[in-house]
């Protein structure tokens, strides 16, 4: 029963992701695109939840949906009038884009499908979500599979991006 529910939920999430992804890149209204993106991000968070990575799902919601999409919406509102439609794409451009994406899908799909993954049953290893304490230790530890250094490093990156962003965006 649980299995079936899982499958149904996955099916829904997958459908949302696929449909909204495509809508995101095809809609002519930029604000709608942002909205569809939001749906995709929600659905992705859903997948993370489904896979018992609830912390990750939460981060996804907070940072992506809460942060990035809001940023997008603000800048969209800043740079265009709501309801503006961008003009139709030329056929040539569409074909070119389609070639690349379909070719890419085929290549990646082929490689993934032919690869003999040795999947382990989901339930056999861990059940339930990841322990937050464990996550904290891993994030702050210095041993193998612990991530203090990247944590420090990304802080520098974020600082630099802040500096850069401010520098570019400020008036003078």
């Amino acid at each position, binding site marked *: 029963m649980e299995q079936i529910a899982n499958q149904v939920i996955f099916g829904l999430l997958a459908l949302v992701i696929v449909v909204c992804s495509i809508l995101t890149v095809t809609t002519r209204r930029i604000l709608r695109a942002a909205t569809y993106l939001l749906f995709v991000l929600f659905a992705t968070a859903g997948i993370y939840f489904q896979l018992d990575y609830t912390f990750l799902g939460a981060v996804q919601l907070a940072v992506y949906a809460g942060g990035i999409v809001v940023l997008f919406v603000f800048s969209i509102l800043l740079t265009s009038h709501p309801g503006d439609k961008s003009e139709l794409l030329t056929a040539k451009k569409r074909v070119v884009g389609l070639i690349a994406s379909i070719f890419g899908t085929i*290549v990646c799909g082929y490689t*993934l499908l032919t690869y003999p993954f040795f999947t382990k049953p989901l339930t056999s290893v861990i059940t339930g979500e990841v322990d937050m304490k464990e996550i904290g230790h891993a994030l702050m530890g210095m041993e*193998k599979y612990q991530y203090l250094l990247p944590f420090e*490093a990304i802080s*520098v990156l974020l600082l630099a991006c802040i*500096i*850069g962003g401010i*520098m570019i965006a400020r008036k003078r």
Partner: protein
Amino acid sequence: MDYSQFLVMRGEISLLVVFLLIFLIDTFGGQKSLKGLSVAACVLFGLHTIWNIIPAESASAFGGMYQISPIASLVKTVLNIGTLIVLLQSISWVDTPDVKLRRGEFYELLLVTLFGMYLMVSSGHFLLFFIGLETASLPMAALIAINKKDTESYEAGAKYLFTAVFSSALFLLGLSFLYGVSGTLYFDDIAVNIATNHTPLLIATIAFVLAGMGFKLSLVPFHLWTADVYQGAPTQVTSYLSVISKGSAAFALMLILYKVFSLDPVVWQGIMWALIVLTITLGNLFAIRQKNLKRFLAFSSISQAGYIMLGIIAGSAQGMTALVYYVLVYIFSNLAAFGVISSIEHHSGKVGMDDYNGLYKTNPKLSVVMMLAMFSLAGIPPFAGFFSKFFIFASAIHSGFYILVLIALLNTIISLYYYLLVVKAMFINNENEGCAIASFRSDNGSRVSLIVCVAGILLLGIASCVYGYFTDLSLLGI
């Protein structure tokens, strides 16, 4: 918790200290101290360079996430030297009214990107590597767009940023595949786990990883941003981009290929073979027609990247030595060229090749420096470029890539052609009526940097100890 592990990261720490000091001066310093910022940056960075000049022992920290080897440490020193030269060359430029407001940011962003490159060079884990890659490229976009009122500059910034994030997305996809195949992101473990793997997925992975790195190195066909960005960015940033960024990426790519994909090099050697041929040839073909010197040097640097790759494809300690040596020489030669260009641009605002007609009559010293740089880039003895080319070819030949080297060598003819065009403009052509570049005296920073570059061009080849030293270090392992 063993915080002494941070001590292994001597170079990164001291770089961050420099960064913080500048940040502090910038943020809290008065108007007066800001004036001295450029000099302070040079001095501080010089100290940092000297502090790190002795290569570190091989060591591993953070459970193998950070790995340092003598040769990697040497690469950092090489990058330091290059950055120092760039800093010297930008002393007068940051004081121009447009840039003055942002000079603090200029130094900060520059140092952060360098920090990112450090991480790339000495990471042992793909997460750290990826963060390093992003740290090296995202602030770079801001740097490129630093002349934000200048159309070309922000256009270049946007082009760089979009291509960079696209390539990092692709790189990320490749990494996810790699993770799926090997189950880990530690370099050493991956190498063990994929030892006998020959599946299409792994091949696609290699292709995507190469594409991601190929962007930084501007290998054909991942190079198209290069020319526009080089042209649009401020010259100082262009020079930084063309030597430091490229040099670090080259070494990082080598690191990945040697460490991660070392056990089965046939696949990536095949891909590299094609990439090298394309890169050198197309770079050269585009360079022929360029009239803007910055754009011209962009294409020249594309083909130079192809030559650098010859050291990687060799897949040996010799290739590694040759690569690092090549990068060093390339730094001196290219920075000499950019130094001249920026000096002239600073004084006359001209960057066209035709503007250089008859330069020798008005500015003989600068033209001689430019000529030396061109000859060195073209690989003419007795300048250092000849030696670096020879060694890199030797390493590729040693690994049996005769045809590849032959193609590369035939391409040197084309490259010689366009390098000579610059020489021709300066020495042979007559100056343009009325709009010749007037005679001027460049600022001290440029002078020092150019003298350093010329010394490097003239001495690096003759003084064999440099190459010998590099060899000793690279034999100690990556």
